[in-house]
């Protein structure tokens, strides 16, 4: 059981602050690092993986500093985001080379185990240059877990994968977490994180915005003023009914229907059909108009 600990970590590049005073502890199980693109997720992972010195604060793995400490790699595996692996090697040669670099007792057997784990044995004798995105991701995964590390860091592992590959990789990650490993992966997609991570850390604009299990994060993200666009048989009557009820803060009557700012997401979505029925108005369309992750995130930041 290993624990990765960041204490008041900041990182800046010149005048630009990429990560600002982040404190978090990553323990066994799957942790999702969630945030929009450019939030500082990669910078954080690079500091956890020893590729970047924190400008201030400390990053330690089981008490040992990570920066300038090559021994942490005996217990830590890292799957970097760039797609490139040594394209001219076959998958098997690549994973075997990584096993040798770890100076494992039986690199051949370790490489085969890792290849089997990500189900890449059938394609292991093709060069990496011929692989699809999903296969490259899996061979990178195999290279990162060839030494059976207690901690695994994955930078945007699902990027560019098709749904089937995504499920497959999620399954591998789940299995490894079940064995007591500490796994952290980054993503900008809430659904991915929600399906896989037992614990979620949200990073926005370099700051640690929220932390908790997915229910808490989901609640934080949905429990906020929501904008809906509503079209109905009689917008005017429906607007009056919504305002009278009090679950919405404002209703704007526009040419394309109503714009409703709901105060309570759950109550509003439950109530709207009833209101419409009672008022005798037929609903044609109800659509959330600000569901982009950025607007969700910006709400969290301003909170």
């Amino acid at each position, binding site marked *: 059981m290993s624990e990765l600990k960041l204490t008041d970590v900041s990182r800046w590049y010149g005048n630009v602050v*990429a990560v600002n005073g982040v404190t978090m502890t990553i323990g066994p199980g799957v942790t999702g690092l969630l945030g929009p*693109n*450019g*939030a*500082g*997720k*990669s*910078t954080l992972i*690079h500091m956890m*993986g*020893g*590729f*970047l*010195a924190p400008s201030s604060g400390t990053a330690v793995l089981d008490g040992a500093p990570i920066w*300038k400490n*090559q*021994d942490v*790699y*005996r217990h*830590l*595996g*890292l799957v*970097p*985001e*760039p797609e*490139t*692996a*040594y394209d*001219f*090697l076959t998958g098997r040669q690549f994973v075997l*080379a*990584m096993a*040798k*670099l*770890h*100076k494992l007792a039986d690199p051949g057997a370790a490489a085969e185990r890792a290849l089997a784990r990500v189900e890449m044995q059938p394609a292991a004798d093709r060069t990496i240059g011929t692989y699809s995105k999903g296969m490259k991701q899996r061979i990178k995964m195999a*290279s*990162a877990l060839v030494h059976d590390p207690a901690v695994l860091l994955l930078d945007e592992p699902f990027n560019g994968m098709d749904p089937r590959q995504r499920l497959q990789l999620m399954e591998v990650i789940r299995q490894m977490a079940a064995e007591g490993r500490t796994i952290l992966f980054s993503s900008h997609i809430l659904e991915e994180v929600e399906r896989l991570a037992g614990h979620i850390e949200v990073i926005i604009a370099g700051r640690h915005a929220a932390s908790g299990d997915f229910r808490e994060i989901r609640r934080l993200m949905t429990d906020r003023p929501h904008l809906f666009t509503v079209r109905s048989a009689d917008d005017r009557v429906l607007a009056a009914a919504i305002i009278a009820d009090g679950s919405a803060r404002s209703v704007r009557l526009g040419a394309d229907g109503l714009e409703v700012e709901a105060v309570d997401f759950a109550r509003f979505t439950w109530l709207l059909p009833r209101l419409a029925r009672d008022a005798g108005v037929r609903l044609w369309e109800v659509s959330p108009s600000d569901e982009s992750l950025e607007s969700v995130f910006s709400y969290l930041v301003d909170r």
Partner: protein
Amino acid sequence: MNSTIAMITYRAMLGRRRALLLFVLPLLLLVLAAVLRVTGNADLDTTTNVLAVAVSTLLPLLALIAGTGVIGPEIDDGQIMYVLTKPISRTSVLVTKLAVAFSLVVAFAVVPGLLAGLIMSGTTAGVAPAFGAALLVGAAAYTPIFTALAVASRNAVTIGLLYALVWETLFSGLAPGAGAVSVQQWSLAVADALTSAHQVDSTVSLGAAIPLLLVAAVGGTFLGAARLRTLTIAGAE
């Protein structure tokens, strides 16, 4: 030294199109030497001129290609992470890369240079072996400098070209003082000392050249290792 890193590096260097450059330049030199020999134009003057060009052009170009090529592209595209996330000291990573680069420069610049000299004028006045030695010490100085440069800067190739072609070739001719800071002149000092031919000349004395060559070789290695130890991989963001 690490044999796995060396294997990957050799494959990366020799398996790509860039490898053609490694082959083409020394081949041109050998063909030129053979033509001069066959046509009876390979006197001592011509030999020293051709070999001086090998020292001033072929050697720095190949040292630049090999010295930066063994590590620069890997840092640029982030692949170096696969090597650096291993319990191997970064000094050992750098020394391995450097050894691979040096062996390539020896194979593609030093050996062809020596052969070209021998083809043109045999061992007359010791010119060919003298230039062989100059190429060897030059390779030992250039390669660590260019490898360190590749670790330190993404513009290593440009900076290296400016140094080798503009500084060493152009300025050394204009201002003799610039020759004091020139691997090319230090190497020629070695050639000068080893041959009785009067055509070989350097602006630097052997007594100054040898310590300077050592400083370049050792200093480049240490700087490269120090830079690699604190190498930060910029985020994709």
